[in-house]
């Protein structure tokens, strides 16, 4: 029982940054943009989150700046891939490399080269009265940090946004069939810019939660692949909000179990457990476990004068 409670609590907390980033990516992907640079955007967010949380003494202000940093990076990314129609994958890789270099450099220049990592005021768990007293699941679901609740709220919210609102419909039209959307008078460029910048806010904020909610410090390259996991989560979740929540929990559970296994020792090497999410993503992409279908115009630059 204690183990289940521990796993559930850790799972949700580890899953939250991946979930937030994946929901941000979902908005971009629905408009036909693949952002491999998610890793770098998150990394920018982890740094500015810690920097501004220290400056203002509040993790909420920190995470707000994380999101805004994401938007700045997103605007540049959008300019290169939408306006200049450059290859989205290579641009994303460049973004990742720049983010790694920039955050590591800033860390050394601002916080010094000492081995002491830059600490920041982090998020504290906020128990929901009464509900948090429910045995086993109470602590896991109702004694979490603020952004975790928000992340869970975002799931139905983004689903509603993409499926029921006009803007959501436009985003999907642009991602599925940009030429029809263009003919119908929708500006493909504007919609893609909006999706990328809006989604990037969430991706940056996800980085902020990683540094302020889980470790309360910044360390170099601390995203360590979670941005790529978020990409995988979108695919494994079948480009659907609830699917993404499920996928994020599965991936987060891998993290939670792995921490437990490394400390307690186990028959199965933890590395194999770590491989499972990646294998599942490949299988999902290949249609071996449930066919996962990407938006039709995924990754393709758009020009109105060409069919």
């Amino acid at each position: 029982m204690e183990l289940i409670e521990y796993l559930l609590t850790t799972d949700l907390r580890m899953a939250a940054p991946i979930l937030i980033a994946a929901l941000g990516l979902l908005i971009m992907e629905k408009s036909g943009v693949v952002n491999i640079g998610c890793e770098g955007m998150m990394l920018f967010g982890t740094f500015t989150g810690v920097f501004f949380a220290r400056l203002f003494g509040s993790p909420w202000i920190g995470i707000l700046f994380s999101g805004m940093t994401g938007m700045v990076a997103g605007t540049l990314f959008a300019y290169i891939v939408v306006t200049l129609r450059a290859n989205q994958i290579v641009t994303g890789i460049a973004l990742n490399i720049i983010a790694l270099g920039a955050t590591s450099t800033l860390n050394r220049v601002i916080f010094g080269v000492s081995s002491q990592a830059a600490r920041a005021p982090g998020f504290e768990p906020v128990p929901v009265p009464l509900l948090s007293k429910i045995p086993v699941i109470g602590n896991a679901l109702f004694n979490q940090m603020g952004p975790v609740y928000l992340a869970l709220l975002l799931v139905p919210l983004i689903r509603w946004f993409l499926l029921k609102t006009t803007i959501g419909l436009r985003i999907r039209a642009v991602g599925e069939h940009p030429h029809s959307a263009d003919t119908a008078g929708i500006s493909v460029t504007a919609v893609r810019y909006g999706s990328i910048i809006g989604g990037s806010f969430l991706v940056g904020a996800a980085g902020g939660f990683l540094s302020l909610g889980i470790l309360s410090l910044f360390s170099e390259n601390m995203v360590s692949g979670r941005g790529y996991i978020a990409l995988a989560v979108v695919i494994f979740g079948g480009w659907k909000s609830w699917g993404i929540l499920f996928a994020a929990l599965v991936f987060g559970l891998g993290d939670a179990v792995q921490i437990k296994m490394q400390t307690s020792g186990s028959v199965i090497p933890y590395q194999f457990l770590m491989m499972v999410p990646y294998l599942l993503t490949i299988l999902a992409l290949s249609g071996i476990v449930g066919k996962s279908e990407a938006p039709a115009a995924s990754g393709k630059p758009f020009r109105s004068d060409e069919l």
Partner: protein
Amino acid sequence: MNRRTTTLIVQCVSIGVAFLLGGIVIKLIGVSPLFAYRALLDGAFGSRNAIGETLVKMTPLILTGLSYAFAARAGLINIGAEGQLYMGGILATVAGTGFAGLPMILHVPLALTAGFLGGALWGAVVGYLKVRFSANEIITTVMLNYIALFLVSYLVTGPMKAPTGNMPESSPILESARLVRIIPGTRLHLGFFLAIAALIFYYHFMFRMRQGYELRVVGSNMESARAAGMQPKRTMMMAMFLAGGMGGLAGAVEILGIQGRLLQAFSPGYGFDGIAVALVGLNHPVGIPVGALLFGFLRAGGNRMQLLAQVPVSVIYIVQGLVITFVIIGQNLRLFEKVRVRSLMEKIGRAEAPVREAQ
């Protein structure tokens, strides 16, 4: 001015702009950019040892650059050179630590072949998933990178861990399987010539052989390839096999020539740098070594720059990222010109054959 000259000029200007912006970053840190860049040059070319190190860093970069280029010419985006490199490293270590007593003339080729096959099979998995299940190769290569990384981590802490010692590393590669150092006082090893040979193979395959021609046709226009009776699926499989093999060779030369044993995370991102190398080198057999030289020089000189000018070595990543960014911006600005010319043609009302751009 013909297209090739324009491309070259744009390419050089893009790289120049990236270094200029990198200089501004260095200035902001409070160091003179000229001093920092001189230290960088000194660290990469200032002595025999420095030049040796630059060539040592170039070696895997040429091979991972070829890995990206082989796939790119077939219209595939291979982000998986990093994973292919690790798989090549694993198999090269298996072959290089076993077979004691084998003469060097057999053992080295055996270990290299094993490395090639390790990467090639990893690449072939991607090709298979692509042609059989139409699984996007960008994502599968990213996923396979992580799987390979965890596999190495498991092997060096488990089955392949050296029986003596507590470090997560394999037993040392046998002397008979090591790549010989060719210049005394440097770490430059035979692998460098292997990389050059791979470049020549790439040139010969792409531009002198039928299979290479078909590969390029599949990459630039799938429909006409099919119409001409070529088999795009088989061609894509072959492209990923060769691309993976190049990545695998990069891992093999790094293990057999430099590391001397399998280690956790032994690559400082050579696989990802390969993408940049191919991009700067325009997937061209002459361009790729130039790209590898550029990034090898940054890697080799970075430490000296940190030591002499107190510029954090991470600034190198910023410069690298900026180079990639401006090179793609440069390449796409060129697209604009064509669009303008084309819409002009349409306005005049002349029938103009559609311009094909490789995207």
